[in-house]
């Protein structure tokens, strides 16, 4: 239990509780530099949430970048390792909060499982993601999907991926434009109508998974996505209640290939956690056969939940010019040892508020 009088921020509290959780599952802390060679990002732009990167020249003329992402650095670090890595991190990334927006330093806490990712490993990460989301406090929901489902739909019309315009409709749950957009992209009316049903489906996880199977019974990708989702949710047991299947959730198919998920907390208007299976990225780096991980964004929580403190300090220790420094220090110490914060001053500081005042 973390002592309340430490006056920790929401992010610090969350990190301390997650650190213990991750370490108890055998994950070790991964620390990295704030910058990487720019080429790491320019070669993998689609993996990044934003393509805007802060760059600068290194002493030897190499182009460096303040890291906009953590996963790439970890996967790069695992290159050539013939063993599985289980790591967690607490790092800052530097990117605009939205396309074309101002650059921000954004805190991230997350974990990555890279190397030999079997069914158990995937389950462990999903379970830890659910625990992490729960640790943010309040109501929470985790959307879960499988990249194979929409890849299967794309295969139905002879494509490897859904066209970007169709993917945009899927992401926005835009059911009114999807038929027209599919038609513009040369996707048959039949496939468009099935896709519309799949994205617009409401109901429980089992209903949506059953719908995927019934819409595409001959499509091996859709069927194996349905099997994998169903198996994972079954194995999660009681934790499955946090998960809601939603096929409108898509990540970049060049990197993500399996289960993907995104967590929402009631107190934040944006996703506070996102993650998924990224075997394609791991293979690209020669870092093993698979990878799965997630990141949690405490800034999203802190920004919306942190209220201004009512007081600047608990106690104002107001002393006059004749007071002895040793007596003032002793008064401050005694307040602090009693679990309160003290602010010593010779006069009442302008614009500051205190619960009570001790005069010396």
């Amino acid at each position, binding site marked *: 239990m973390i002592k309340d009088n430490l006056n920790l921020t929401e992010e610090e509290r969350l990190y301390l509780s997650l650190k213990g959780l991750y370490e108890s599952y055998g994950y070790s802390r991964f620390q990295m530099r704030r910058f990487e060679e720019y080429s790491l990002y320019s070669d993998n732009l689609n993996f990044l949430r934003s393509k805007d990167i802060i760059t600068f020249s290194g002493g030897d003329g190499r182009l460096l970048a303040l890291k906009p992402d953590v996963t790439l650095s970890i996967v790069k670090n695992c290159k050539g390792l013939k063993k599985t890595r289980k790591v967690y991190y607490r790092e800052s990334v530097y990117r605009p909060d*939205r396309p074309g927006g101002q650059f921000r330093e954004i805190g991230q806490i997350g974990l990555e499982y890279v190397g030999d990712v079997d069914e158990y490993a995937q389950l462990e990460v999903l379970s830890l993601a659910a625990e992490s989301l729960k640790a943010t406090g309040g109501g929470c929901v985790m959307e879960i999907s499988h990249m194979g489902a929409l890849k299967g739909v794309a295969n139905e019309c002879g494509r490897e991926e859904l066209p970007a315009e169709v993917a945009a409709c899927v992401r926005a749950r835009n059911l009114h434009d999807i038929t027209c957009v599919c038609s513009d992209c040369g996707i048959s009316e039949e496939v468009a109508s099935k896709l519309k049903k799949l994205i617009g489906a409401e109901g429980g996880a089992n209903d949506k998974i059953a719908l995927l199977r019934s819409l595409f019974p001959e499509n091996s990708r859709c069927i194996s996505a349905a099997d994998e989702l169903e198996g994972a949710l079954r194995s999660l047991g009681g934790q499955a209640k946090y998960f809601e299947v939603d096929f409108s959730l898509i990540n970049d198919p060049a990197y993500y290939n399996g289960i993907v998920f995104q967590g929402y907390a009631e107190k934040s*208007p*944006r996703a506070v956690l996102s993650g998924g299976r990224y075997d394609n990225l791991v293979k690209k780096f020669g870092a093993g056969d698979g990878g799965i991980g997630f990141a949690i964004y405490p800034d999203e929580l802190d920004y919306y939940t942190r209220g201004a403190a009512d007081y600047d300090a608990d106690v104002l220790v107001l002393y006059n010019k004749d007071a002895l420094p040793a007596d003032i220090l002793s008064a401050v110490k005694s307040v602090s040892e009693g679990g309160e914060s003290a602010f010593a001053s010779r006069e009442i500081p302008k614009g500051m508020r205190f619960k009570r005042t001790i005069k010396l």
Partner: protein
Amino acid sequence: MLNVALPKGRLGEKIYKMLEKAGYSCEELLKDTRKLVFTDEKSGVSYFWVKPTDVTVYVEHGVADIGVAGRDTILESGADVYELLDLKTGRCRMCVASVNGFREDMSRPLRVATKFPHVAERYFSSRNRDIEVIKLYGSIELAPILGLSDVIVDIVETGTTLKENNMSVLEEIFPISARLIANKARYRFKKDEILTCVERLKKELPDD
């Protein structure tokens, strides 16, 4: 309680009438008052009027659970929101237009005056056409007439303004109508309320 951001102006009032018929009335809303937030406990709804281009901002930040915005605003802002319903009202088109007789000089970037720089950049980049965007806030039609730009990218409703200024549409980029949008996180936690609203509004939509 559903928090709804409505765009100020004629379109917003039209949308409110649809919401009122759908059971989300709030008597005070259309009164001449300086109030900004209108709550009706009985209907379970809280409305606020905002500048049309700000609706996506209020919804994306979750201050409003749902809102009504034109497709032009949604695409220009790139807001990460759900787009749940085409309200089939406020219909117009996003177009490229210029003065009659305009001939494009392919040897240099096209100068495009617009209120919608992202829409313009995306559209011309999809055609590999290099452009120079001139961002304006109003009277866009004036730009090609006075030689500030070659073309404009703007909303065309009836085409009367273009016609009166000896201009015409060169290309249509996409059709526009008002859309019901929802915050992605609020959708998760107020799904029943939001989906009920969508279903009720569907019954109030104008015919195609």
